């Protein structure tokens, strides 16, 4: 291995003038940077800044058009991820690549050369246990992957990479799906790993506080170029944000106080089963008034999905009632709810919120095909829908070549803009925004949040679901921690305490003096 004999602080990986072009764009434009053993080197950049391309080049998925990669001082050519793994580079993907029906240990040894034909699970377990002890990971080896939380899955991914002998660890959005306590544990482990001379390269879109908390060095990419690279102590949250976006960003949207109107959504004792038949939503009651954002904070899998689907008419509730604008809609179909003023932005924008092989016009039609204004005697008025789509594209700044393009050609942020616009232009009474900014870059996140505030100002009630506590705290008029299908509390937005909400998301009640 090229990395043998490298001491702490010496350069393990270096790129020189890495350039990668795709038709129409230069995704990476002469990128130089270096990683040292025992260093946590964060790569920061918005979506489209060239982060993913660079990551794929380092992991052997892409070949650079120009430039070279040096590992341990020697120029190497990474033809495939296998080459990268052999050289000690390990990657933990943002989207988990685990076999969910298999146990933790089976996943960790999957593909390991030492696993051989006959599995020696005992020996592997012992070896992995050493890693766990060293870096403070805790995981049940016999548990099946589907039983694990996102944070535990992440640990499995990291263990898998470490067990294969990686000494350079590339982490793609390492904390994006984790709860605050899980994030803290992970960061502690990352620091323990760096103390053991592993080089760690987290790629991060936003969450600047994390970058500042753990990294030793930070490199910011914008439009395929390195705009700055500096020791982290010289950076501030604000300076990094400006470098990433190229302009100043308003980080904290001030909570706008809107005159509270009558209740629009009234939910009484609503319960629902999960797909596995377990009571996932356990008798919640609440009401949201005109001009309010009701922010539900929680780690995914605590009943948010069931709540949202029960409200949108996609899941039959076990019991309870739902009243929208004074009308009982508990048994109404999803279509009837749309017609009564539901506006639902689903969490999965690719598989639920849009149809990849449909044009943008046809995607807009998803929320308009039933609208009499956009059809005539059963035939859709595609001319009108096209005009609306083009209006949306220009008003919301959706980057696309034409309204006839297929939805799959849009980037995540642009797709989310289209969905948001499509839903909000209907002027819904109830907006359900299910983790609406997940995976978006700072610019798009800011945009989405502003639009939600605008909807609230226009008199809608907004149900916001998020795992990002900062998002909930900065937008919501009511902050509602959810845990195991129950609301832990319903707290007015101006009286909320961050720590106590964080604890309640994990099921704990701090002895609070709220």
């Amino acid at each position, binding site marked *: 291995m090229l990395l043998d004999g490298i001491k702490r602080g010496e350069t393990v990986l270096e790129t020189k003038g890495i350039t990668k072009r795709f038709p129409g764009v230069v995704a990476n434009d002469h990128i130089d940077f270096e990683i040292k053993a025992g260093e946590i080197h964060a790569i920061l950049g918005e979506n489209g800044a060239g982060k993913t391309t660079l990551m794929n080049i380092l992991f*052997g998925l892409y070949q650079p058009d120009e430039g070279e990669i040096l590992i341990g001082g020697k120029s190497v050519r990474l033809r495939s991820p296998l080459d990268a793994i052999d050289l000690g580079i390990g990657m933990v993907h943002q989207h988990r690549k685990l076999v969910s029906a298999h146990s933790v240990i089976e996943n960790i040894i999957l593909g390991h050369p030492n696993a051989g034909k006959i599995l020696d699970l005992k020996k592997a377990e012992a070896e992995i246990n050493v890693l766990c002890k060293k870096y403070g990971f805790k995981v049940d080896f016999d548990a099946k992957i589907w039983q694990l939380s996102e944070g535990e899955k992440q640990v499995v991914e990291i263990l898998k990479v470490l067990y294969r002998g990686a000494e350079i660890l590339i982490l793609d959005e390492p904390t994006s799906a984790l709860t605050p306590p899980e994030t803290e544990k992970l960061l502690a482990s990352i620091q323990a790993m760096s103390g053991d001379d592993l080089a760690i390269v987290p790629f991060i879109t936003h969450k600047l506080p994390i970058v500042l908390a753990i990294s030793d060095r930070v490199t910011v990419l914008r439009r395929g170029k390195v705009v700055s690279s500096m020791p982290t102590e010289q950076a501030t949250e604000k300076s990094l944000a400006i470098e990433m976006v190229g302009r100043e960003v308003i980080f904290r949207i001030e909570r706008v106080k809107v005159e509270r109107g009558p209740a629009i959504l009234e939910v009484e004792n609503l319960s629902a089963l999960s797909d596995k038949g377990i009571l996932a939503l356990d008798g919640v009651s609440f009401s949201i008034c005109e001009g309010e954002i009701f922010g539900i904070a929680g780690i995914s899998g605590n009943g948010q999905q069931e709540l949202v689907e029960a409200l949108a008419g996609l899941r039959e509730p076990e019991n309870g009632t739902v009243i929208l604008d004074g009308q009982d809609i508990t048994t109404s179909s999803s279509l009837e709810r749309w017609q009564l003023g539901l506006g639902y932005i689903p969490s999965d924008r690719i598989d639920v919120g*849009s149809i990849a092989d449909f044009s943008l016009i046809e995607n807009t039609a998803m929320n308009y095909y039933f609208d009499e204004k956009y059809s005539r005697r059963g035939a859709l008025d595609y001319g009108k829908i096209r005009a609306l789509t083009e209006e949306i594209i220009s008003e919301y700044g959706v980057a696309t070549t034409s309204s006839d393009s297929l939805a799959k050609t849009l980037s995540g942020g642009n797709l989310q803009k289209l969905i948001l616009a499509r839903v909000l232009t209907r002027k819904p009474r109830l907006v359900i925004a299910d983790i609406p900014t997940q995976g978006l870059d700072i610019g798009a996140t800011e945009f989405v949040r502003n639009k939600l505030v605008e909807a609230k100002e226009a008199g809608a009630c907004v149900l916001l679901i998020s795992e990002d506590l900062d998002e909930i705290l900065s937008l919501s008029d009511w902050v509602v921690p959810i845990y195991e299908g129950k609301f832990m509390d319903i707290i007015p937005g101006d009286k909320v305490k961050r720590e106590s909400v964080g604890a309640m998301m994990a099921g704990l009640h701090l002895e609070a003096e709220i």
Partner: protein
Amino acid sequence: MKIGGYQLKLEQRVSLAGWQAALTSILAIVVALLLFSLLFIFAGINPIIAYQEVFTYAFANQFGLPLTINRFIFLLLCTFAFIIPYRAGLWNIGMSGQFYIGALSVYAVLFAVGVKSFNIIPISPVIIILFMLAAAALGGALLGAIPGYLKGKYNINEIVVTMMLNFITFYFVSFMIKEGGLFMNPGGRGESFELPSSLQAPLISNVPFTIFIALGIAFLLYYMFAKTRIGYQIRAYGKNPAAAEYAGISKHKIPLLVFILGGALAGLAGYHYFAAFPGVYKISRNYGQIGDLAFYGIICGLISQGNPLAAIPVALLFGGLSVGGRLVQGKLHMSFGVDYALLGVLMITLVAFQFFYRYKFVFIKAGKENIDVGVSN
């Protein structure tokens, strides 16, 4: 692969234009005919002469052409029975069963008005013919509703259900027309009683009026998918059921609807073949072979990519080859089954060529940087 200074490389297609799909299909047909000519050569027959016979008889012969057209009408209706569910992402493998039930429903109407027992029928033939048509469509639709309902309500695999129903209906036909069956021909012979000449479908230069129904439906379906709300809902469900459900499109109704529509059209094919096809006019003994031919609706539907207008030339070609193939078998003294073999080779080649819907070959100058690119996307 290297050719001269160039390298041949396989690339994934980003998009497929209509003309590219058409060109691929034509190429596939040419290749299939070339492949099949080997069979002629092995039998000691000049393939050029053989194909000349096939095509002249199928498309330019006063006896062959009407047969071709009748087969075409039948195949086109079966193709629609496949296409409609296909656009909703569902597979109707039950066109032959729906076809059988359509035919039985027609004969049930005849039986009810007393065709079998009396010779004089008190009702006007036009009205009875309309009833026969309606019954054929209704019968097919009801059979189609079974897999459609089970799919929508309980997510039961529609392929299995439609396939099983084919067997059930096959024997049900047998039960109805053979010895002791309600629709048995008085002379026995294992076929149904015959249609009186007053109730035979009106012909326009030896072609029954069902051709207008089939062609009219082609345009109606095209319009439905391209313009209407229901067509949009079907397509949305077909491309992404989860997104369709999110948008308020009922996951129960769409499968039921497409199978009812598809079944109804396969049922009409039953009317066409056994009550409008000149020279048949009864549920014939070899009804099972016709039922097998109905499966070519799947192939025609796949080749035309679910486009009802593109299905017209495809069904015409298959209809013609099935007729012409049968002729050369007899005329050139070849062994049994040339027509099915020809359709089979055509089918395999066309399916194999679907590969080119997703990939294409490109030539790039050898020696360029990106020769050994591993994975890219």
